[in-house]
């Protein structure tokens, strides 16, 4: 029987792939109910141990566990699809996506050896790093960017409780898939802002 950590890790991967399936189906003319059913089917299929392992385990072998922020954003995207959550205005969207972009820029090059210093080390419980995140979460609440506040807070809570197999806070805050998605979303939000300004002239 897989452990709680493994089950949540596998479910996270299955959820991400089901969301990807729903995203693809949005671009073809099918009813929303059909798209939702297909995504649900993909989710269940990925968790069934069809081969030696569940299919999600093969993807997990390559990607590792998805960060808490990614899972939260997937849930947010699903809520938006279902019409339960209004979209954010563009400047706030840029602000929200800029954070993971900056985090990725600080984390990945240094962790892969671009300099003698390794920023990944902060995630093992550097108090000043936590203080910085606390300031960002409070700023997110004050500036009406609840997604920023919730994703940072839930990531810190999950790390504090030792949810995943990783003991490093960075792994709860960000993953490479989120970083790539954030770069594209940031660019797309910037273009949207630029276009709306041109139209309003």
């Amino acid at each position, binding site marked *: 029987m897989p452990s709680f950590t493994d089950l949540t890790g596998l479910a996270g991967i299955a959820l991400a792939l089901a969301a990807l399936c729903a995203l693809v189906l949005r671009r073809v003319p099918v009813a929303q109910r059909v798209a939702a059913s297909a995504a649900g089917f993909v989710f269940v299929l990925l968790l069934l141990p069809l081969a030696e392992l569940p299919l999600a*385990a093969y993807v997990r*072998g390559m990607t*590792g566990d998805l960060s808490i922020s990614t899972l939260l954003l997937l849930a947010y995207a699903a809520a938006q699809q279902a019409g339960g959550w209004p979209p954010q205005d563009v400047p706030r969207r840029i602000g929200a996506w800029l954070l993971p972009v900056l985090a990725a820029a600080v984390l990945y090059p240094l962790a892969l050896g671009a300099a003698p210093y390794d920023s990944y080390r902060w995630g093992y419980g550097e108090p000043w790093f936590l203080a910085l995140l606390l300031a960002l979460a*409070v700023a997110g609440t004050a500036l009406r960017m609840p997604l920023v506040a919730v994703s940072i807070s839930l990531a810190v809570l999950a790390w504090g409780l030792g949810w995943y197999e*990783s003991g490093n806070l960075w792994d709860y805050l960000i993953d490479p898939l989120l970083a790539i998605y954030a770069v594209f979303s940031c660019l797309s939000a910037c273009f949207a802002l630029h276009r709306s300004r041109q139209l309003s002239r």
Partner: protein
Amino acid sequence: MTASAKTRWLLLGLTLIAFAAGFAKAFSRPPPVAFQPQRIVADAGAAPTLRMGFVSTSAGPHRHAPSLVELRDGRLRAFWFSGSREGASDVEIRSAVFDPRSGRWGAETTVIDRARTQRALSRYVKKLGNPVAERAADGSLHLYYVTVSLGGWAGSSITTASSSDDGETWSPPRRLVTSPFLNVSTLVKGTPFHYADGTIGLPVYHEFIGKFAELLRLDAAGAVLDKQRLSHGRSALQPVVLVRDGERAQVLMRHGEGGLNRVLGTATADAGRNWAPPANTTLDNPNAALTGVALPGGTLLAVLNNIESDRDQLTLVASVDGGSSWRTLYTLEDQRALRERTLDPATYATGIKALALATDAGLPDAAAFAVSSGEHMCVAQRCNYEFSYPYLIQTARGDVQLVYTWNRSFIKHVEFSPAWIAQRLKESAKESTKERTNAQLH
């Protein structure tokens, strides 16, 4: 209160709870402490002895990357990986136990294989690699081994299992997360060591894009508490930490890229809070693993291919000045004279049989050594010798135990008594004085 204000208060509440849990975890992390040098609790005797043999004599599989750990009763347990070839899906982590009283190795057993590892980790595992083991403060053995899910060795991560019965049975493996980028590229090879509070220091290395050495600090349960860079760039692999006392340690690293083929070194004088910039040592290195240990008096011992290319020579060297200079104590293997000759399988088989019998004259089937070595070391009618991946420990009795890969087919074991090392240190000091005098006269 408006709905928006309510939401903000709720968010602030969540933030406070989350960060209370976060800060509680951060402040419960053990502070930096001194190193714990190896404790010598008994004397291995006054006789200068050197004993050698093979860990396993059954022919067939490819065997590589051995390591050792001392058991509670003074026996030794060796680990290595074994399969049809390096990186094959049938590679397993194997083990055997040595009894110093009888001088015999027990039967080889399988510790763990790929299928069991991937079932326990709930993720696909392609291949297994280097294993090392250490005893935690609570007395349990911890095994750390390399697993790969994606790509080659650069895509490795570390998996760990523990045993409370000195390696007879093992817990389900679990993965150590040590890198933020898909957890790729952390490998083990160097001997683990202890800190004064019982936490474990595990020397590791990274080889995806950059090649650099790192140090993990783990608690008794095997959770990662900290990770530290020992080098950066693209030149250092497979660090070994030689703990000299509570504050001082010397690190030796495999030279991993072109340029001057020298072992790289770094050192600390404050229990690892700061490390000196890595620099070339006077030891040659053909991009091959090395090992070392610090003796209680401060003498450093290392075993390595002390040559600029190939792995056909292996020597035991010592330093009495903290790693500034080294001198050879003993040549364990040396087949450099045959380098220029094209060794066909028949000539090679004769040589291998002679070498195997020189290690253990009582071998029942030396021909099997020739067949197995030929299978793994001959390509297109051309054969090579390889003596590599040494691993050295000092036991609580004070004797020094070495294992290394012997032609990718067998694991060779060599045992040095403290008296033998003391005698060779004296002799080599005299030899170097004589050499210096001769050089001055000329």
